[in-house]
């Protein structure tokens, strides 16, 4: 028969501290170097049917390799968003907004911060960030070949 412990069971600490180095590969390296240069690069299938941003070197529909790169303007349409009022330790200070953006000419969504909107009142802010809102990227002053080389996207009226 199963014996249970007493209610004042001991608790011990276990601690991990592990660092990783992750190789980005060809496609994402080129993409990030593009961001560092204030450029947004995507990959496009030969028939133009699908354009990937972030870029990838194979097509999900046909499994064929993709070799064509296209530069796209960092402007698009907001398709979904959320305004964070309770963040987490180590994250940005709330409130802040994050969106899923369909960059013009591409077929997946790029996620990024949405800036420049007054977030004090959730209802007003949500009305400003409805699906269909046009947004444009603002580049960070300091760029290190990371996704945060884009500082955020702002609403374009």
């Amino acid at each position, binding site marked *: 028969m199963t014996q249970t412990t007493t209610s004042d069971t001991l608790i011990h600490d276990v601690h991990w501290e592990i660092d990783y180095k992750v190789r980005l590969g060809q496609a994402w390296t080129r993409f990030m170097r593009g961001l560092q240069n204030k450029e947004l690069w995507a990959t496009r299938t030969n028939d133009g049917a699908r354009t990937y941003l*972030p870029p990838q070197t194979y097509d999900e529909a046909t499994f064929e390799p993709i070799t064509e790169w296209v530069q796209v303007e960092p402007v698009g349409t907001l398709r979904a968003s959320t305004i964070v009022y309770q963040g987490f330790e180590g994250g940005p200070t709330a409130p802040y907004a994050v969106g899923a953006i369909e960059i013009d000419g591409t077929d997946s969504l790029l996620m990024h911060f949405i800036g420049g909107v007054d977030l004090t009142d959730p209802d007003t802010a949500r009305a400003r960030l409805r699906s269909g809102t046009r947004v444009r990227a603002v580049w960070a002053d300091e760029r290190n070949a990371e996704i945060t080389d884009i500082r955020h996207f702002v609403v374009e009226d």
Partner: protein
Amino acid sequence: MKDHAVISGVGLTKATSPRRQTMSKYELCRLAVDRAIEHSGVSRTDIDTVIIGDIAGFEASSVSAKTIAPHLGLSPMTTVIPISTGGTSGGHLPNQAATLIKAGFAERVLCVAPNTFDGPVDLQAVINTNSPMIMEQPLGMGASHMGAFFPGAYQDAYGISDEDLMMVATKNRADADFNPYAHVNSTLDDEHADRMISTPLRLGMTCPVSSGAIALVVTAEGLARTESPNPLVRISAHGSISDGYLGGKRRDFSKFEVVEIMARRAYRDAQILNPLDELDVAELFNPLAPMEYMLMEAFGLCEYGTAPQLVKDGTTRFGGTLPVNLSGGIVCTNPGLAGQIAPVAHVALQLMGQSVTRQVEGAKRGVAHSAGGTFFQFHTITLMERVA
């Protein structure tokens, strides 16, 4: 020998908070296992396979399934299969048991779903390791924030009110009052519940961090016919599906695009033509309460954008055509792995006529679902039918 698979035994433990939990993971799993084995009528030494779930990063040791196995009091020759697929691990356990039995590679399989969240001091830090790295992880999204994209887009697409989003959470908590194994119930006060986390998700729409374990025994049907004291609940169909990993791979956050595909395949396998009419009970994995609406639609219970009406008119409440989440759902109880297998456990008990919550009279067919990934990229389905 190939045979159908039936869920022959269910072992539940009462959920509490990790802070209040007094048992070690091994002890809790052992308790759930003992209960499942006793319920099943199977002899302990006849278990030939044990499938144990864990989620990488949440445990203080790697492949914790392997460290748990020796504590369960099983024969040393028992095959041990760890499954680690994030939020769908629990859903995969009975599906894999059924696969092995139907292929003739196992006869009596024990499924163990441990308490996942007891260990980490900073749970969010662990959850963030699931965030798509490099491209999206630096963007300040924790689990609630990623999850919020879905009800936000759903609300935007169909004009669903904040009140309607909260309505289903209130239903879940009211149902949890009738589930002695649930964690949170209707005693959650409104002021807490209304606090905005990440639009449109409020605290009362999000799951707690719970501690508990669940085990199932899955047996070859021919053996269960002679051994099991319970009505036979056959796993009549099962499946899983995945969507693209980056959050941005979802083209439409207002629906779970791939869940409809998964449900249709499983319905075809089980010959279910009209799920709303032919199913008697459903447990759909809802760590965020509004997911219940989106899942109802993806599972074909109603047209997209219309699920709140089925809650309003009682169709999916107790006493309605197809009660959904009578256990209170994951938004009331989320111990991780155990939470992911709970839908299967509760549906199985309903079909046995032995529900620990309110019993749906004469329930014969049911569906259970689990979901994983912070953008709900993965899903499982388990369809069950009482055959004797």
